Each structure stands twice: as structure tokens, then as C-alpha cells.
């Protein structure tokens, strides 16, 4: 537990740390010939923020959707909290899902509910012993965490892109997950808002000691948040290392991400 605080700069080695997410030889084909994942292998250690780079359509979202059981891979192994996700029963999978937060690319806020309802809905389903006041105070706290307390009575359609992402994040955090999977948290936002979100991600990591996978195209976000980076290309991991290492990579294609 002691070593796990150190981050940026030192290359993390799996043997010294506890692997929280382990992905082995993951394969997925859609339809007849869309072979998206062709043997993806990687590990995320406790307390680590792993950034995933790769071009659009390279299968980044598919990979993290496999982790939470939204997509079933054709072949491979996924271990989370030392349990094989693919062998879990529905009930066990759901218990695991509560411990994993997933931030969707679009935010995926429930359109028909107000911001308050969006957050309270998740809470109410999982903590049935909470009364209305306790739910309200937890909702307020979660919104306060992302700096949007005054949006509580708004409907999702009234929110800007950045606000939607943040409310989505607040909704994800309300169950206090140990792992958070971010799917392009800053895509489509202006530079300043992107930076705010990136800082929020960093802040969450430090305060809650969460482990994260962050999919992004935003190198500023990667630089700020990444303990380690992997690059996905044509269905396999093309490169792996810290920001500093990959920036000076021999491989021109990998380097091109950093320009």
C-alpha cells in the first residue's frame, strides 16, 4: 500500500503493485469482418491513472465496455478486483458494477429527469435505506464536488456540453466507485473547460484514491492525468510508457500523437 502513492515519472511495474484490472488477449469482432480487438493485453494497478490513446474507431470504447460487461468479447480474460468478469453471474456482475464508475462520451444523462433526479435515481436504487433528506444532501455534495450546485433543478437539455460531462461525472461519483472509466471526458469541449475537467479528474484521483482508465485525444489532459499511457492500433497495444517516454518514442506514428 505504501508504494502506491508515487506516480508520474517512474515507470510502474506490475510486480510491485496490485493489479486491479487485468486484460489478457482480448478479441472482439462485430458482424462478419469488423475485427476490432485482436489480442489486447494490459494491466491497471491500484491507484493508477492509465490513459488510452488511439485513433477513432480503434476500439478504445469497446475495450472499456468489455470491462463492465456491456460488450461480451469473443475471446480473452478480464480480471477486475481479482475476479473474472466474464464468468460472473448477473448478480455478482452488478455488485462489481457498483464499484466501477463509467463516464460515457456523451454524458448519457437521463433526458427525462432533472439533474437532481439523475443523481438521486442511481442513489435510490442502491441505497434503499436512505431517506429523502439524506439523498438530497448526498446529491448536493456530489454536485458541489464538480462545482455545479446551482444546476440542480435544470433539465439535461438546458446544460452545455461541459456541464453535461460534469453532471455525468457527479452521477458516476455518487456511488463512490473504486475504479472510474472515462470515455473521452474532454472531447468536444473548449480548451479551458477541458482543462477544468482534467483537473477534476486529477483531483478525484487524489482525494478518493481511485484507479482510472482515461480514453482521450486531448494531449493536455493526458499529460496532466496519465501515470502511464498505452496506444491502441489496429486492435493491439502498439506502445506503452509514461508521457515523457512516448513523447520521445522511436515510432513516428506514436510520436505523432504528441505533436
Amino acid at each position, binding site marked *: 500500500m505504501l508504494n502506491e502513492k508515487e506516480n508520474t515519472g517512474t515507470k510502474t511495474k506490475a510486480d510491485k503493485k496490485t493489479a486491479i484490472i487485468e486484460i489478457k488477449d482480448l478479441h472482439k469482432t462485430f458482424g462478419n469482418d469488423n475485427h476490432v480487438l485482436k489480442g489486447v493485453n494490459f494491466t491497471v494497478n491500484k491507484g493508477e491513472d492509465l490513459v488510452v490513446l488511439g485513433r477513432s474507431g480503434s476500439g478504445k470504447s469497446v475495450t472499456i*465496455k468489455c470491462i*463492465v460487461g*456491456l460488450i461480451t468479447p469473443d475471446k480473452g480474460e478480464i480480471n477486475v478486483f481479482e475476479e473474472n468478469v466474464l464468468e460472473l453471474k448477473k448478480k455478482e456482475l*452488478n*455488485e462489481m*458494477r*457498483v464499484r*466501477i464508475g*463509467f463516464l*460515457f*462520451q*456523451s454524458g*448519457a*444523462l*437521463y*433526458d427525462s429527469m432533472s439533474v437532481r433526479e439523475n443523481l438521486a*435515481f*442511481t442513489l435510490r*436504487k*442502491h441505497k434503499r435505506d436512505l431517506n429523502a433528506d439524506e439523498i438530497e444532501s448526498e446529491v448536493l455534495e456530489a454536485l458541489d464536488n464538480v462545482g455545479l450546485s446551482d444546476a440542480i433543478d435544470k433539465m439535461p437539455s438546458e446544460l452545455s456540453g461541459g456541464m453535461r460531462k460534469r453532471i455525468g461525472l457527479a*452521477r458516476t461519483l455518487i*456511488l463512490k466507485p473504486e475504479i472510474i472509466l472515462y470515455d473521452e471526458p474532454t472531447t468536444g469541449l473548449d480548451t479551458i473547460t477541458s482543462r477544468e475537467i482534467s483537473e477534476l479528474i486529477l483531483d478525484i484521483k487524489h482525494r478518493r484514491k481511485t484507479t482510472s482508465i482515461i480514453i482521450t485525444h486531448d494531449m493536455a489532459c493526458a499529460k496532466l492525468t496519465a501515470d502511464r499511457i498505452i496506444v491502441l492500433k489496429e486492435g493491439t497495444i502498439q506502445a506503452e510508457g509514461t508521457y515523457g517516454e512516448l513523447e520521445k518514442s522511436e515510432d513516428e506514428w506514436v510520436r505523432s500523437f504528441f505533436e
Partner: protein
Amino acid sequence: MTLNLKNTFEDVGNATLFAARFFKEVFIPPYETRQFLKQCYAIGYKSLPLVAITGFIMGLVLTLQSRPTLVKFGAESWLPGMVALSLIREIAPVITALICAGKVSSGIGAELGSMKVTEQIDAMEVSAINPYKYLVVTRILATTLMVPILVIFADAIGILGGYAGINIHGDVSFYRYITKIFQSLEFLDIIPATIKTFFFGFFIGMIGCYKGFNASNGTESVGKAANSAVVTASLTIFIIDMLAVQITDLFF
């Protein structure tokens, strides 16, 4: 062509599995009572005006159209009974169900389709909330219960429309009109007609949910889901109606 046929069979198979899941999940607590009532309101109450208007017109038109023939045979006194019978047995259930296919089934298809496309259904799934139970079970239950009620409502309004139609040509007291209807109605006219409306309701909800839940990515698929829900639900209503008539014929 063979591919098309294969797809159709696959679709029917998937839809059957989808419907079977309803019967598995509907009995397992916790029950989504609040959401169910909300759906009943949205599906039942909000369809009332449309059903009322069409019901009234159906009754009125049916009376006006049947009258000349009956007059020719000197059987004008049969008019109320005949109109009520056609309304209750056939016209009100089918027309109401078709209206609900157009309004409710497509509405559900579009709503769930857009939830699917914008990953809201996935979001429920990953936060360990059963989206089938929350979204689908409540809607199917609501349509199964509300469509029969709407049909009974349409029956009543249709009979009122018939009364209006009769009074265009003569002066019949409402009491006499109703008595005539009850004289010609039998219990057996009502039971099979009511039973089939539950099936209408079930399929209207089920098809809307199925199409929405299986919308593929991209916004145009929301429109497709809604459209395909109407077409499939309408066709299904006619097929159920045909089966219902055959079965009723056999037993009664």
C-alpha cells in the same frame, strides 16, 4: 431474399425472447410502482381525447351508414343493437388499438430508441440498474392495462355517437336507445372482445419497447425504430384480431 427471410425469422426469435423476459421479470421485486403509474398516465390518460373523438365519429358514421339498408328491410329498430354490437365486438377494439399503435407504440419506440442511441440504457446497465425492468416491464404492463380501458371508453363514446346519429333522423329517447342496446347485447359479445384487447395492449407495448431497445447507433435509427414499431404493431393487431375471431367462432 433468403437473407431477408433469415433476418425476419431472427427478428421474430429475438422478439419472442424479449417478450419472454417480461414474464420472468414482472414478478420479481422490487416493483417499479411509481414508474408504472407514470406510464399509465402517459399512455392511458393522454390518449383519451384522441380515442374519444374517433370513438364518437365511428359510432355516428356507423349509424348513418347502416341506416338506409336497415330501413329498406323495415328493420330500423335493430339499428341501435347492430351498431353497438359492431362497435363492441370489432370496431372499437381495432380502431383504438390502431390509434395506440400509432401514438403509443411509436412513442415508446422513439423514446427508448433515443435512450439507446444516447447510451442512457447502457448507463443504467453499468450502474447496476436493470433497464429492462425499469423501462420495459413498466411500459408493457401499462399498455396491457390501459388499452382495454381505452377500448371500453371508446365503446361508451361510440354508443353516444350512435345516439347522435339516430337523432339526426328521428327523435329517440336516450333511455329507449340504451334499453334497445342492452336487449341485443349478450354477455358473450363482451368477454372475447375484452380479452383480445389485453393482447392488443401487450403487443403494442412489447413491440414499441423491442424496437426501441434494439435501435442501432445513429440518430436516424430512432425514427426507424418508431416507424417500424407502428407498422409491426398495426400488422400484429390485425393478426391477433383474426386469430381471436377464429377462436371465438370455435368456442362460442
